[in-house]
């Protein structure tokens, strides 16, 4: 219990420093002004989301190979946490885009790919709710998770290729291009803080899933007895 509180405190301290750095240490952008600071939440969330999906993919592979419930628990925990971070990306993107681009959403390659990525993992979570039997749910969702992750580079590739034919509305340069060195450091630090948060969330979610798993086993044993 004490360990948990300490870990959470450390993560929130890191996040606090990241927030402070993004507001007071990183210089204000010449063209965009204050609104650009959402970058320090938006970009690290995107990277962290992808990291979480990668962890989920590894866990899915390990489940199919070893058939230990803990890999199933890790798989679902990482996928849900990744989904949460990707949702943050999809929410903060439009908040930034509206004042800067003048529109909330455009079907540009990066936005479309992120949205498809989000849909894939929503489908993964939906699938898990629709299979009762724990072993079957673990195996089938692991297989879907593997297919979904294999699909990610193909989604990104196809959408990037498709853009060649469809010029997008006037869009300012990507915010990451030619980033100021201080901004870059703050960005990397924010990512570190986000990764710490991700680890904490996955750990908590994993413990919950493990408890659920134990409960299901006990219920089954009771039914048999």
């Amino acid at each position, binding site marked *: 219990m004490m360990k948990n509180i300490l870990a959470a405190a450390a993560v929130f301290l890191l996040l606090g420093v990241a927030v402070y750095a993004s507001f007071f240490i990183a210089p204000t952008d010449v063209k965009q002004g204050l609104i650009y600071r959402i970058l320090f939440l938006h970009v690290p969330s995107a990277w962290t989301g992808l990291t979480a999906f990668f962890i989920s993919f590894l866990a899915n592979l390990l489940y199919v190979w070893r058939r230990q419930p803990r890999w199933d628990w890790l798989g679902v925990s990482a996928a849900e946490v990744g989904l949460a971070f990707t949702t943050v990306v999809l929410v903060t993107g439009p908040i930034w885009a509206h004042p800067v681009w003048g529109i909330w959403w455009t079907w540009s390659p990066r936005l479309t790919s992120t949205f498809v990525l989000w849909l894939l993992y929503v489908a993964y979570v939906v699938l898990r709710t*629709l299979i009762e039997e724990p072993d079957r749910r673990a195996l089938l969702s692991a297989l879907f998770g593997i*297919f979904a992750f294999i699909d990610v580079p193909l989604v990104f590739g196809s959408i990037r290729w498709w853009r060649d034919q469809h010029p997008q509305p006037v869009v300012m340069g990507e915010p990451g291009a030619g980033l100021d060195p201080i901004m870059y450091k703050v960005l990397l630090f924010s990512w570190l803080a986000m990764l710490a948060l991700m680890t904490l969330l996955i750990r908590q979610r994993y413990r919950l899933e493990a408890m659920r798993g134990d409960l299901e086993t006990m219920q089954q044993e009771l039914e048999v007895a």
Partner: protein
Amino acid sequence: MSLFPNALVLLGKELRTEFRSRELLTTTVVFILIVMFMFSITFQPTSDESRQIGPGLLWLAFLFAASLMLQHCFLREQHNDTLSALRLSVSDPFAILLAKLAANTLFLLLTELFLLPIFALMYNVSVVRVVHWLALAFFLGSLGISIVGTALSAISAQARMRELLLPVLMLPLLTPILIVSTEVTKALFDRAPYVRWQGIGFLAVFDVVFLTALWLFGEYLLEE
């Protein structure tokens, strides 16, 4: 190496089952016709607009039709409780998947073959000059849809709400096929048609990647 002989026998079984009744093919063709008709009365596209949006519509209709049509391939085995018998009869369970995906590709291609002339007439697009390239694009696209669809219908058949679940799993996964097949078809429907090799190559890569994944993980899909 009994994989291919086994798969061939099973493919024969799939085709015999379907051609006895032809209900799957008939219903799918009617479904796509209805979608095409509804699209045209909703948007009333001119000839140039059809060239622009027609390919997307065509592939969307194929995808939706496939997501309904592919439900059947494992449900039929479940209803008759024949999946365990099938598994016992072959040494490599991949043969079952291979036969089913070959049959599904064939069914999709047959519906497309039937619908393409109707589409060309209704939407005023000439396809005669590029029909061999269209055949290649349709084959690679339909193969991709069938590989992913067969795998996912094995998953959805074991879940609740399976009729709704299959499209939810399948459509986002098939976004690359939808985008690229549409673009390749659009180039072929152009007034001066041309082949987009990059797109054809992409479709082939997609098929190879997912066929490999199915080969590696397919046996787990059919575990009892």
